[in-house]
């Protein structure tokens, strides 16, 4: 019975840990399939976490908080577009710059709004859905936050958008061969800009999940490298939406497992376990050789002559 409880708890925690990663990775997927590596992800998630929390705390509405986070994420995506698409500056440096800027602005605004109190301010976060009664042994797995279910549902939706719709075809076209796309009459700048805006919104929701659902408060270490994990997961997922789920669940599972083993008093060098996804990604990159399925025009600014 104990082992059943343990496994149920593990799966429940795995889903929670995976949620922000699913949003972040799907956001990055939009950007990268359109040909832009957005290293602004770490900062965009942080900005989403902060904006969501700040709007929810000042207006009292969690949904307005979520909306605020989405708008902030879109803005971050548009800024990335201005720099890397319109001006064609180096994508790595522009993305890192956005991460630094979004983080700085969030920290600054947090201090301006909430001051320097010893007790971190908190909000009443989204409740978990009651799908099964609490007495049911499987309840911890099914009773998750709405945002977790939406995130999982987004995976097939994003797969469908990218591989089956006209908009998805355009994204892939500008990500694989912008010159040909342009010759075919597509507006490369506009399509990449849209992809980055959607991507930014998704990343921000990933961050907002942490403050609005999981924690109900905002701390400076709240995102803690999750954006970089998403950069890793997308390679692991070979730029395919459905694989994002497996990657996020495996990472979530490892994280949940180490947390559980720790609370059981089992001594493990868990920090080394936390490095596993990064190590696995580097190995995956190596095996994939010359980035087998990376969009061909990734990292290349497009200049219309």
């Amino acid at each position, binding site marked *: 019975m104990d082992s059943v409880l343990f496994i149920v708890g593990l799966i429940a925690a795995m889903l929670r840990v995976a949620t922000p990663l699913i949003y972040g990775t799907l956001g990055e997927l939009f950007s990268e399939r359109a040909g832009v*590596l957005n*290293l602004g992800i770490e900062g965009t998630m942080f900005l989403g976490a902060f904006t969501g929390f700040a709007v929810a705390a000042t207006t009292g509405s969690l949904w307005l908080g979520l909306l605020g986070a989405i708008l902030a994420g879109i803005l971050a995506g548009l*800024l990335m577009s201005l*720099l890397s698409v319109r*001006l*064609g*500056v*180096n994508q*790595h*440096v*522009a993305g*890192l*710059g*956005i991460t*630094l*800027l979004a*983080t*700085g*602005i969030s*920290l*600054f*605004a947090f*201090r*301006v709004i909430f001051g320097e109190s010893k007790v971190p301010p908190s909000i009443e976060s989204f409740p978990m859905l009651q799908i099964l009664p609490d007495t049911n042994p499987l309840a911890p797995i099914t009773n998750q936050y709405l945002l977790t279910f939406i995130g999982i549902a987004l995976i097939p939706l994003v797969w469908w958008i990218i591989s089956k719709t006209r908009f998805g075809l355009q994204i892939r076209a500008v990500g694989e061969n912008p010159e040909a796309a342009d010759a075919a009459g597509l507006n490369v700048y506009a399509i990449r800009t849209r992809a980055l805006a959607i991507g930014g919104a998704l990343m921000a929701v990933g961050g907002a999940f942490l403050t609005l659902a999981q924690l109900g408060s905002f701390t400076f270490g709240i995102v803690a*490298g999750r954006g*970089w*994990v998403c*950069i*890793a997961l997308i*390679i692991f997922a070979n730029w395919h939406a459905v694989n994002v789920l497996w990657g996020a669940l495996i990472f979530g599972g490892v994280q949940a497992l180490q947390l559980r083993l720790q609370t059981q008093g089992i001594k493990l*060098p868990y*920090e*080394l376990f*936390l*490095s596993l996804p*990064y*190590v696995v*990604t*580097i190995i995956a*990159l*190596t095996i994939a*050789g*010359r*980035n087998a399925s990376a969009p061909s025009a990734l*990292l290349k600014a497009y200049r219309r002559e």
Partner: protein
Amino acid sequence: MKKFTIERAPAPVWMRTLLPIIAIPVTFLITSIIILLDGANPFTAYYNFLIAPLASKSSAIEVLVKSTPLLLTGAAVAFAFKGGYWNIGAEGQLYAGAISAAFVGTILVDVPPIIGIPAMIIGGFVGGLIWALPSAILKVKLGVDEVVTTLLMNSIVLNVTSFLLNGPWRNPVSMWPQSPEIQPGTMFPQLLPRTRLHFGIILAVLVILITWFVINRTSFGLKMRAIGLSKEGARFAGIKVNKTMLTVALISGGIAGLAGAGEVAGIHFHLIDAISDGLGYSGIIIATLGGLNPFGVGLAALFIGLIDTGAQTVSRVMGVPVYLGDVVQSTLLLVTLSLFVLQNYRIRRVK
């Protein structure tokens, strides 16, 4: 009547030098918006930001203290970028250098400084180099994108640091997560009494001079610049691209490792979790502002050091959150990047 046209051609050199300088007032104009939102006066804020730290001797020295690791991470990043290697991992290489230096500093019991200090320098350099090695090898042997691998190596070393400080290196008495104090003979000497200014800044200036010399006055520098301009072209010219790039990547990692060694040997005397807090990423800002030129990097590092110090002054004097410094730094980076696009254009008079 004179007419002008804008054409796609490299801008004149004076223009390229001017761009980062133009970026500064533009940045202050943009960031004054958030200062106004906080209800503070931007002019007073910028006085406290840029002038006040230089007005007193102790805070002017603190600018140099803050600039010390920045000179090194800036030089590390600029060196790599100049050679066409996108090392985003200076942050991680700094940590690796700090770990390695903390180890060397602990085991060299009762050594005189004449042995201890060079050992710390070598330790830091080798630590950073080792951390840069996997990404560099994967890049040149298998063509694996170094941006992603160096970025991920940053995350790994943070976990390794946390493992060391909570595991083998945790202080058994206080349970404080910091490594044992390094031996006195391995500490960098103070340059001025009662300040934190230490030998690291001399080391940093030497590194700036050496990297400038290597890039501009050696055949190796010529090769790496050729690769930075075009890998295909360099290969065509008979340059061993992979071998040169590997060397560039490892030296860059080593220089970033020196920054970590300096923080351990000159400031903290322990390894701590927050030994860097973004110095490696600031190195990318500094390298960009400095136009990848070591002397430009030197000026940019001093300027970012001033901003870091000034942010604390603004916070103390006016109650404006200290994170204004982060906002100014990152805005400056983005504005400079945008202005650099103008490098590709020149204005010509048409008769």
